[in-house]
């Protein structure tokens, strides 16, 4: 990466990297995918409250720690961590008293993941932010209605909702809406929210939404529910769902979608030529764009060209927009069919940007201290940006040079600090990657709300999909064993290490002796079937294919069976599925006197011992309660002792 910037700036980049990426860059560190608070939902966290957090990482089996000191000073003790075994961990924590702390947002909960077999492989994710709210009021919904009483809407119409909330004491109340039942790809970004009045702790807002073209709408139906949201600065989100509308789409031309093709990567300036691609249900639709909100209609419409598949390409040259503010404006698109039915879509927005500068790229670097990556490797990019105008920035990874088919690739982007983004992913299999190569250019692209788009694609990595060094060879494991700890050994290249897994749950590394190229370690087995596998890793963490084998741990079952009540000459049946060489049964009374001793020697799985009910003097034992000790000796000399109670009677 540093080769792409002037030498004078290298020191600065290194300093920025050290400040922003607090963790040392270590290969094979856990990679965070994301974290979210499951409970409480829709509000901040109060005192003495049990909270549940889901945190997702690139693998199961990590040791997870969460630090809640910033929330309650750690008064709640240690959280309970549950591993769901698919990379998602559930953190359950009960907060302590937060009476002495002020209610606030943006409380960072660092979540640390570490490899249990190598604690040096760890990573702390600080992207999860929660709110502390132990007493601040939350918004209370009072009333919501559709302005003008309209209940039936068609594409392109404005849906205007008035909503009234009790907001006394609420921190920075913000109403919003969720129209995803009407527009499946609904974005809150498309809403316009205006404050109407705010008096006596009651605030009234107007939420306006332009119903998009039919291509983005659900099927025509009645009673489509709408949700109105009331949010505050302390993570509260109150939902009101008592509103619905009817949607009518038939008759008029159907507008599917529209997008701005030019100018690309920036907003529109004076005398720019704009190219908009729209799609309708028919090529026979006559399309009339309205650019009045952009430049007051000062420009000139160059052409509206029909294309195949319902596409219409609109070219327009803007007029002089000097003096107009930089903002997003709506371009109304009206479509007319042969019967003069029409629809006007106002969902397309275009950025008027005469002077607002784009985001500034400060630096990007990969977390790993290497340039060479292999399928399955974790790739984490830190990217630091600032915006001269303070606009929000959205970041998108640029991976088309690395991943041939980006579909379905899980890429997590989280904002770690004010301007530092963390892009993390796990590289897919070889068949979805480009061919091996050096200096593969990847990067990120930043987009602000005024359509400024800045690319940084100068991160150079190498891709190696060829198998690494020779995979390890495991010495044969017995198909069955009755011990809990087995020795796993084998041969591997001396420059590698061998990762051992059992049921994909427990992973640790066995070092390879460079001189003998042998590795050896112990693996704990669970009762029953155990799938044991392992792969070799080179110094870059590149893996060989995994070799697996099954080993069944026989659970030694010990049984002692005798009748209750026990009568003279009854049998005591002693079993041990692990085998015995000697069994000794002793009968004691509760005073600790030994009454009788029976034993059997040999090699057997089961022994039958008979007590004639007589004591050491040969007298018939008294009726009553006795204790029997059973002492088993296994072939390996291991002794197992147990005590069993016995009720004795002489009514033979």
């Amino acid at each position: 990466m540093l080769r792409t910037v002037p030498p004078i700036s290298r020191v600065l980049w290194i300093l920025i990297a050290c400040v922003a990426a607090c963790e040392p860059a270590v290969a094979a560190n856990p990679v965070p995918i994301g974290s979210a608070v499951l409970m409480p939902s829709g509000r901040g966290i109060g005192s003495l409250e049990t909270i549940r957090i889901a945190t997702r990482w690139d693998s199961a089996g990590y040791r997870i720690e969460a630090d809640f000191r910033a929330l309650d000073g750690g008064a709640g003790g240690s959280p309970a961590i549950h591993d769901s075994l698919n990379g998602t961990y559930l953190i359950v924590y009960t907060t302590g008293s937060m009476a002495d702390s002020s209610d606030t947002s943006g409380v960072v909960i660092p979540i640390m993941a570490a490899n249990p077999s190598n604690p040096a492989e760890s990573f702390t994710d600080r992207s999860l932010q929660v709110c502390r709210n132990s007493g601040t009021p939350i918004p209370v919904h009072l009333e919501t209605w559709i302005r003008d009483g309209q209940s039936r809407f068609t594409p392109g119409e404005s849906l205007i909702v008035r909503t009234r909330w009790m907001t006394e004491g609420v921190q920075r109340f913000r109403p919003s809406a969720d129209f995803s039942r009407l527009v499946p790809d609904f974005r809150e970004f498309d809403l316009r929210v205006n404050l109407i009045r705010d008096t006596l702790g009651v605030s009234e807002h107007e939420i306006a939404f332009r119903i998009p073209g039919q291509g983005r709408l659900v099927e025509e139906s009645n009673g489509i529910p709408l949700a109105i949201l009331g949010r505050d600065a302390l993570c509260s989100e109150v939902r009101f769902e008592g509103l619905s509308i009817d949607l009518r789409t038939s008759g008029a031309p159907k507008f599917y979608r529209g997008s701005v093709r030019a100018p690309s990567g920036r907003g529109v300036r004076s005398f720019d030529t704009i190219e908009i691609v729209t799609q309708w249900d028919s090529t026979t639709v006559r399309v009339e764009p309205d650019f009045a909100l952009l430049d007051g209609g000062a420009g000139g419409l160059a052409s509206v060209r029909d294309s195949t598949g319902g596409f219409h390409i609109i070219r327009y040259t803007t007029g002089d927009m000097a003096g107009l503010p930089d903002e997003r404006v709506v371009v109304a698109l009206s479509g007319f069919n042969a019967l003069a039915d029409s629809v006007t879509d106002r969902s397309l927005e275009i950025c008027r940007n005469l002077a607002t500068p784009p985001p500034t790229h400060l630096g990007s670097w990969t977390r790993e201290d290497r340039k060479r990556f292999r399928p399955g490797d974790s790739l984490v990019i830190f990217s630091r940006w600032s915006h001269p105008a303070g606009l929000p920035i959205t970041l998108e990874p640029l991976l088309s040079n690395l991943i041939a088919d980006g579909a379905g690739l899980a890429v997590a982007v989280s904002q770690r600090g004010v301007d530092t983004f963390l892009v993390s992913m796990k590289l897919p299999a070889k068949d979805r990657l480009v061919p091996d190569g050096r200096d593969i250019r990847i990067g990120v692209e930043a987009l602000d709300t005024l359509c400024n788009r800045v690319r940084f694609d100068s991160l150079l990595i190498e891709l190696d999909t060829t198998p690494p060094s020779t995979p390890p060879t495991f010495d044969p494991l017995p198909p069955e064993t009755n011990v809990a700890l087995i020795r796993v050994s084998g041969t591997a290249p001396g420059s590698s290490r061998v990762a051992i897994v059992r049921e994909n749950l427990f992973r640790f590394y066995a070092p390879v002796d460079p001189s003998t190229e042998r590795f050896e370690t112990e693996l704990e087995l669970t009762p029953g079937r155990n799938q044991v596998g392992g792969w070799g890793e080179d110094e870059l963490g590149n893996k060989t294919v995994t070799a697996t084998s099954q080993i069944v741990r026989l659970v030694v079952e010990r049984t002692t069976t005798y009748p209750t009540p026990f009568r003279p000459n009854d049998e005591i049946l002693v079993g041990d599925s692990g085998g015995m060489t000697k069994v000794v049964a002793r009968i004691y009374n509760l005073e600790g006197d030994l009454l009788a001793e029976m034993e059997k020697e040999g090699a057997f799985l089961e022994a039958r011992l008979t007590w004639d009910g007589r004591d050491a003097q040969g007298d018939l034992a008294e009726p009553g309660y006795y204790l029997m000790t059973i002492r088993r000796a296994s072939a390996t000399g291991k002794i197992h002792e147990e005590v069993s109670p016995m009720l004795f009677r002489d009514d033979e």
Partner: protein
Amino acid sequence: MTSKARFAALAALIGVIHALAAAGVARAETAGAFPGLDPWPSSIALGGIPMGLGEGVEAVLQNPTGMVARTEAPGLAFSHASLFKGGFVRHQAAAGLWPRRPRQPVWTGGTVSHREGPVTSAFGLGFTNLSGDLPGDETYGEMTIAIAYARHIPLGLRSGGRLRWLQARSTVDGSGGAGYALDVGLEGTIAGMRVGGVARAIASEIRWDRSSDGPIPSAFDLAIERPILRGLKLYGGAILRADWSVRRVMAAAAWTIPGSPLTLLASPGWRQNDLEDGSDLSAGATIQVGAFEAAYGMRSGPEGLGEIHRFGLTVAFR
């Protein structure tokens, strides 16, 4: 009376008591039901010696003569024990003591007044409960209710007797048994030593629902106590079977730390058995706070059987 005469009298009486115990020989000389368990933590910690030479309220379930030895006030005692490995057996004991102190004229500074004199006799009431687990969620239980009486007798000796009502029941088929046992004790002081003995189950009979009826095994507990230094006492004792064979021999020491409410107890013991001879170690401690005394005692059992742990609390109404 000289010590020699007192010793001769005591030995003769003990011999008679043991002869009476031997007369009631059961079919087996090892206990089955109603075992002779040490009912108090201090008894456990001293190897079982106090069974032959107890004192105070605890003597209600030991040698009853101890009820009039070093006793000044009524008292209550409770204890709980877990017996051996596996947690199958629990044992609880409770006892109450009512000493009788006749008023005596006292000449003080030229005037005669009447005050309570030393304890001359005492009544005691005791209770024990033993519960044991059996395979298949079945249980077995034994309950004992004892009434005891002790008094000073001529020759400077103390005698006592105890009648126990016994009942056993199991959930296996609801069957059990019930009966009684009579215990007699005697003790005295000879050459600065307390010497005592109790014949347990000198007479007894248990009637069983599902087993043949008969007495429970007799046993004879013999003990001596000798103060050595301030706060330090040494003990010796033995448990004899009805056929005069020695079942157990014990030595013990109790040390009350001067100026402290704490008493430390320890005892090695040796068992004799036709099948197995062995030794064990007992230890414990008591701490006295006002009228209350809390105690803990443990004893190691035969190999593989585990230990006995017992906790107790004693209250004296002074």
